[in-house]
């Protein structure tokens, strides 16, 4: 049998050495903490806590804390984090949304209705099924050079599965799932997608700045710049510039007359419901 005094010596040795190390290092950390303390935006910590904490570096920043710092500072997008689950992403997007706007979630709006059957085809495109790819070779099949090309780059980059192509080749946003991360906005080479808070509910879904004759020639749902909408609201909320009507969301409210019915090409659309959250 092992001599019991040897056993005690072993145990005491282990306890003292481990305890000693623990003590020394904890004192070091305490001192370092005092000397190196940095005032930090409290929001950074809240956001950092919500992040996955895997410190994997995929976002391109040195760990989740660093990412949180840059995120709250507006230097990066939440979509840079591939590990972030939809629950956390929603919470963080809201926290960040608080900073940017008055507490409302933003969603993506696709400002185009020129899908198959509505827009004219100018060519047969056989190439990379990507919008940015098609841009290099003449812009794909659709005759309108301002509108959606339909190859789905926006769908590919959405981390939240919130945008999908419909059967006419126009992307449709699921307003419940969309977090307003902005990936699709960036991905669209024609800047057809915009982010709007839920309270904005009427949009002119067209980007075509050509005159009426030319825009009508390429798409049956194009804005022809006829100004009927502007006249219907006496210029409050709808303005036509460069042959394209644009909604001024500050001025236009639900109580005003809707130009939707009056628009000859039906390019003005009500999006979303009044009680949406």
């Amino acid at each position, binding site marked *: 049998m092992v001599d019991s005094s040897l056993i005690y010596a072993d145990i005491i*040795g282990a306890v003292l050495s481990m*305890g000693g190390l*623990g*003590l020394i290092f*904890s004192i070091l950390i305490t001192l370092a903490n005092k000397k190196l303390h940095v005032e930090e935006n409290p929001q950074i910590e809240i956001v950092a806590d919500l992040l996955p904490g895997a410190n994997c570096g995929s976002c391109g920043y040195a760990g989740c804390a660093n990412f949180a710092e840059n995120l709250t500072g507006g230097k990066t997008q939440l979509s840079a984090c591939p590990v972030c689950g939809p629950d956390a992403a929603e919470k963080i997007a809201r926290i960040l949304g608080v900073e940017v706007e008055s507490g409302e979630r933003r969603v993506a709006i696709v400002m185009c209705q020129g899908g198959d059957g509505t827009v004219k085809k100018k060519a047969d495109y056989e190439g990379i099924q990507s919008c940015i790819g098609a841009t290099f070779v003449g812009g794909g099949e659709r005759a309108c050079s301002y509108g959606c090309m339909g190859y789905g780059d926006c769908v590919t980059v959405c981390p939240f599965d919130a945008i999908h192509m419909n059967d006419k080749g126009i992307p449709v946003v699921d307003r419940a799932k969309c977090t307003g991360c902005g990936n699709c906005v960036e991905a669209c080479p024609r800047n057809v997608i915009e982010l709007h808070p839920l309270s904005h509910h009427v949009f002119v879904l067209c980007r075509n700045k050509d005159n009426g004759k030319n825009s009508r020639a390429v798409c049956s749902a194009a804005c022809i710049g006829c100004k009927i909408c502007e006249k219907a609201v006496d210029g409050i909320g709808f303005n036509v510039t460069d042959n394209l009507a644009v909604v001024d969301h500050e001025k236009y409210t639900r109580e005003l007359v809707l130009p939707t019915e009056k628009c000859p090409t039906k390019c003005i659309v009500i999006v979303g419901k009044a009680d949406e959250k």
Partner: protein
Amino acid sequence: MTKSYRLILVLTATAVLSGLLLSFLNLHTSPLIEAHQNKVLNDALSSVLPGCDKIEEQFYENKQFYFGYDAQNNVKGIAFLTEGNGFQSKLRILVGMDAGLTQIVKIRILEQKETPGLGTKIETDPASKANPEWFPNQFDELNVTNKITYLKNQAPDKSAGEIMAITGATISSKAVIDIINAALIENSMILKNNTDLKIGVCPAIDAINETSFGPELVPEGAKIVTIDNKTYFLKKNDSGSVTGVAFIASGEGFQSTIKVLACMNPDFSKLLSIEIIEQDETEGWGTRLVNDTTNSDPEWFLKQFTDLYVQKVISTVTETPNKQNGEVQSISGATVSSDAIIKMLNASIQGYRATYLNRKVN
């Protein structure tokens, strides 16, 4: 409590608890681990020293030996552990031999992490269903009076110390042989010097080759004899007469032990050549003994000893040395190393000459 104190307390407490827990764990596991290691070693020892009533450990010159005794307390076998580098891992081998260190009884590979399916065959070859341990078994009753060598794809001759290498794992096979060869040489010397066991012949050393004895002599393997505890390597010609005698001299150099193989003619009147087989002198200075880059002939120092007459002692001169008088020049900047060589040669030539010339001729 304040944050700082809590910080210190939590970390220290965690460390202390960890230390406690692990030391209790150790109480439980250490004996088991040690018992297992002992069992492995004992199993291996009884297989490499078969039929021994008792096995005892002994240390000589800090090396561990295991002696197997029979019922009459005579040494029946000697075993030792040896280590070295394999192809990609450290190999640890237990070698069991007869009492005279002339024949390997058995080897056991204790540790290896070679390539699975290739190098691992040095321990066991599952592909060879009938005889998975065919490689280590080749060492059973292997004659090692000369170096162990390997053949590829040929039937080896055990009495000549040959074994067959593993196809596709030549480097691992060669490593095993090199490690055992080196250990045999070293351990034979140690046992010879420290015990009065009749240790038989050492395996031939790499250093012995025909050039050590001059090109006019017929190249043949040297025969190793021991006279009065001194080891000589004899070179014989076809008719059996001795044409050269060599021995190993050693001494302290500037910062390391230097070992020299000195080859002489049979009446010890002339040094035929010397070869430094071991040295670790200062790089660039003492190493000029073997490679003097400042001279057009880098091996000039050792060549001085070729055909050097030594009826008188070897001495150093500063001008052109006269070989008939046993004169040589030392290396500037490495006088200590050069002088050490000369001193050890003088001492050993005297001793070895006396013993050899006074031997009882049978």
